[in-house]
């Protein structure tokens, strides 16, 4: 099916199951410990061996030689496979750094060997016995100095690095009120709870991999490329994923090493990347330096807005697209954005939840707060005044649906925004109290997504798609979609995900998963409905599926009977027309935050959080709300404590574990409120839904930084907003 025209009324609009607060259908498995993650697949008839990786201890250079003799002699060791043994491999299309193979070292903790032993303990001990002789190369590790050699990156996927409308420089120079400020965001880590893990098993030239992947087909394709085998020979499964946040979008070293190790050992091998290793081994969100200039009239109209961003990556890598939202979020006739990319020899920078917008809004939404302060305007009013209903770079192009103003207004009302005082004036006990807010914005992406839906003689529906559930609720919303389309209760729907034998789906990423994959199931269900109609000789234009029955005129047939003993199958892939070109499709929201800042120590603690989201139809308010509060929690970490600290001499992230890289804990997070605007977006998909999983992260960190400003009068432009950036400006303690 191709979605080319805005949706009209369809069976989803019945909303008997879709849109309802239905608890996760995988909830019992997850809460009882029965959901099996990658490393946990166990067949009592298989004698698994254990692989333990070794990472490079230098950031750049070449491996001259590796001495594996002691490791090979170590008790229990079955084989040792080194990067030199496997040699340089073809690079997967989504990878920047080599995952495993060859003598070149491109970053710290790049995988250079895998030791296979009968037990985990034996493999780990032996891995420490490998001696490596390196030719150490000179690397560049400091973004702040590498920017001088930064280049304009090539356009990726139709995204130009630069944009310009009107006369930005002239308008900015002549603006009555001006802001010119530079912000920085640090390197950040996905830090998902389940480490990268794979089990690989060969059967002749066929490979089965049980792994932890957000994108089955991307992994399968790139694993085939890296191994140099036919993609059809690989069977990949990832039915449960212990979090990804973009870190598991692209093939990682665990799967590659497991495959080589299993080949060498002649038996299935389990590999999990140790936590202190995986931080530098895997990808991260690159640090940015962002300069934002805003010019406005005295009554608060933006006349000029400019956003430039510098980031770094390995050669062949990409920029962090931190300026993208600035092209779309606010009005203003004169505009410019630019991205520049420096070469850095740190681990690979790549997508992390809301790539571009998350760090972009961390900067932009402080800048908006700052210009509102300069204007003496309420930042909510300033944002409303500068709203736009068209793409400000292409005024002929409308947003499909945009209710940012509604989010701002409702949020301000519900949060008690009017109670906000002047900066540094409100004190309760030992804390300064402040309110802050920011707009949320994330583009709505769609991806082709396929599914197979089966109807059997019991009237049961089974959905099969290689879609993944990374905690997003895919199992549940896909079941809801099929139940709605086929007119059956939830109990009659089974969902099988994350298997490369199923139709290729959107996968999970870029907040496109829910809308795209449910649309894929919708398309497959349309096919199945047609098959049912055809089998029964019904006119498919005049047919109703409800209560486990099919009705047409006055004929009623139970689905089980329609299925017949052989059952029926519908399979299709949702393809997308050019509605995303005709219309700008985005999701919107507003974040409101209350903080307390310790008057003595400068410790920032959150007191209240509210997000209001406008993201089309909400398919399941329980799982959608969880996506948003989860993103708000991540945003709290990004605002207040998360930073991969770079050793600029030796080129690695120093705090490479969960003690050193501080994500938010329970004690950091207050009760969180989420309000969804009641809306649909028929231009987005037949589901009339949009993504919401990343929207919750967009802007929340800036809202916190703005609240800290309101509490203390101190403007911190370098994340994270830690106490050392505050205490020197806080009043003396009596």
């Amino acid at each position, binding site marked *: 099916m191709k979605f080319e025209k805005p949706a009209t009324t369809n069976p989803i609009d019945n909303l008997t199951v879709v849109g309802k607060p239905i608890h996760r259908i995988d909830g019992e498995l997850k809460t009882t410990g029965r959901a099996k993650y990658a490393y946990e697949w166990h067949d009592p008839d298989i004698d698994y061996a254990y692989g333990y990786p070794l990472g490079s201890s230098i950031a750049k250079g070449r491996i001259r030689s590796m001495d594996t003799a002691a490791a090979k002699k170590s008790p229990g060791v079955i084989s040792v496979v080194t990067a030199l043994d496997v040699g340089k491999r073809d690079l997967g299309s989504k990878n920047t750094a080599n995952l495993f193979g060859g003598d070149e070292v491109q970053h710290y903790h790049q995988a250079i060997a895998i030791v296979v032993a009968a037990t985990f303990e034996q493999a780990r001990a032996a891995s420490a016995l490998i001696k490596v002789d390196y030719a150490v190369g000179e690397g560049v590790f400091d973004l702040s100095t590498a920017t001088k050699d930064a280049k304009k990156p090539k356009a990726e996927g139709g995204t130009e690095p630069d944009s310009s409308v009107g006369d930005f420089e002239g308008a900015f120079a002549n603006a009555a009120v001006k802001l010119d400020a530079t912000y920085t965001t640090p390197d950040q880590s996905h830090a998902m709870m389940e480490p990268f893990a794979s089990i690989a098993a060969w059967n002749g030239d066929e490979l089965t991999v049980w792994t932890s992947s957000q994108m089955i087909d991307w992994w399968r394709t790139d694993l085939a490329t890296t191994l140099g085998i036919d993609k059809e020979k690989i069977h990949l499964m990832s039915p449960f994923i212990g979090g990804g946040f973009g870190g598991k979008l692209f093939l990682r070293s665990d799967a590659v090493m497991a495959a080589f190790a299993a080949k060498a050992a002649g038996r299935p091998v389990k590999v999990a990347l140790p936590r202190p290793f995986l931080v530098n081994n895997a990808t991260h969100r690159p640090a940015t330096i962002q300069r934002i200039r805003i010019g406005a009239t005295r009554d608060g109209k933006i006349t000029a807005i400019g956003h430039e961003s510098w980031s770094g990556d390995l050669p062949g890598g990409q920029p962090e697209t931190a300026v993208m939202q600035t092209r779309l979020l606010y009005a203003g006739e004169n505009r410019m954005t630019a991205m520049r990319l420096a070469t850095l020899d740190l681990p690979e920078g790549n997508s992390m939840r809301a790539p571009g917008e998350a760090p972009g809004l961390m900067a932009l939404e402080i800048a908006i707060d700052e210009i509102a302060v300069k204007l003496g305007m309420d930042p909510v009013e300033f944002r409303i005044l500068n709203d736009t209903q068209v793409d400000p770079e292409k005024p002929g192009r409308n947003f499909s649906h945009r209710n940012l103003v509604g989010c701002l207004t409702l949020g301000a009302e519900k949060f008690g925004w009017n109670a906000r005082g002047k900066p540094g004036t409100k004190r309760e006990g030992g804390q300064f109290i402040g309110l802050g807010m920011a707009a949320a914005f994330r583009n709505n992406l769609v991806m082709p997504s396929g599914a197979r839906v089966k109807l059997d003689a019991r009237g049961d529906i089974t959905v099969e798609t290689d879609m993944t559930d990374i905690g997003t609720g895919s199992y549940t919303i896909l079941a809801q979609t099929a139940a709605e389309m086929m007119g059956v209760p939830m109990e009659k729907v089974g969902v099988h995900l994350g298997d490369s034998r199923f139709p290729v789906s959107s996968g999970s990423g870029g907040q496109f998963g829910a809308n795209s994959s449910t649309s894929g199931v919708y398309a497959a269900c349309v096919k199945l409905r047609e098959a049912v109609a055809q089998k029964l000789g019904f006119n498919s234009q005049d047919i109703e599926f409800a209560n486990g029955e099919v009705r047409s005129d006055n004929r009623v047939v139970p689905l089980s009977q329609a299925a017949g003993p052989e059952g029926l199958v519908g399979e299709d892939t949702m393809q997308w027309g050019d509605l995303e070109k005709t219309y700008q499709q985005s999701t919107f929201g507003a974040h409101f935050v209350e903080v307390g800042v310790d008057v003595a120590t400068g410790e920032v603690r959150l007191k209240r959080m509210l997000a209001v989201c406008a993201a089309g139809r909400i398919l399941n308010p329980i799982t959608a709300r969880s996506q948003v509060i989860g993103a708000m929690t991540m945003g709290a970490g990004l605002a207040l404590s998360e930073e991969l600290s770079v050793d600029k001499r030796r080129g690695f992230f120093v705090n490479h574990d969960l003690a050193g890289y501080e994500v938010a804990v329970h004690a950091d997070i207050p009760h969180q409120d989420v309000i969804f605007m009641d809306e649909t977006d028929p231009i987005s998909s037949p589901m009339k839904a949009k993504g919401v999983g990343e929207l919750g992260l967009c802007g929340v960190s800036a809202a916190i930084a703005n609240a800290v400003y309101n509490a203390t009068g101190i403007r911190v432009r370098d994340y994270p907003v830690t106490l050392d950036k505050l*205490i020197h400006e806080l009043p003396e303690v009596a």
Partner: protein
Amino acid sequence: MRAFTFERAESVRAAAESASNNPEAKFIAGGTNLLDLMKLEIEVPTHLIDVNGLGLDKIEVTSEGGLRIGAMVRNTDLASHETVRRDYGLLSRALVAGASGQLRNKATTAGNLLQRTRCPYFYDTAQSCNKRMPGSGCSAIGGVTRQLGVIGTSEACIATHPSDMAVAMRALDAVVETTRPDGTNRSIPISDFHHLPGDSPHIETALEKGEMITAVTLPKPAGGMHIYRKVRDRASYAFALVSIGAIIQADGTGRVAVGGVAPKPWRVDAADAALAKGAKAACAELMADARPTDDNRFKIALVERTLAAVIEETRDKP
């Protein structure tokens, strides 16, 4: 983790003897720090002596009216003990400020004193570290140092001692009781227990080979208000940037120990003497010879501000 042999010690004496007979042996109690380090091969014992079954898990009142805390008393039990809560509140507060509920259920009193630094360069075996590998150099100096020490450090090492409990013990004038392999016992004042790094940062305590901590003794209660204030980026489950353990009497005199700034719990007599004059005066003494880096210079101001808040808190309450 290298392979090791394992024994359950039958007595304190036997444990100490076994340890002295095997130069690569280690005692294991809660294991929460030792196993963490063994997995990374920062600690590489070839023999482990399990000392959990020696009955060292009692808390008793001493004849001097103080408290004798068995070496194997778990952090949770020590923090929960009625007498500790009532008379040594500082200790209870420091304990529950540390780690997590799970870790406190396992971690012991002796083990906590012997906790090793959280310096990230100590933790990364690909980096040089004089503490981990004497003479290899200190890669932390000139590197990422925000968490590291500002005082008591040396050219060889700028790591801090990570314990919260030890800060309270220092303020409480605890005494560490040990048994040596020859069966003799000794008492080590907490002030002498932890060593400054100098040019031998791998020597962290006064313990000799095979010497085993059996108890920690507290003198009779000091009275006063007990406050432990731990400052950190996230609200819980994090090591201190700075922590203040203070006992302040109604007249404003008292004692103060500082965590997160030095290779040992940091206490200075002159600072105690100046405490009644306020935080600025006390901090000037505490931080007199500080040698911060650009990244951790803030800790000096933070100590003063936190101490000021602690003193203010004692004034707020009767």
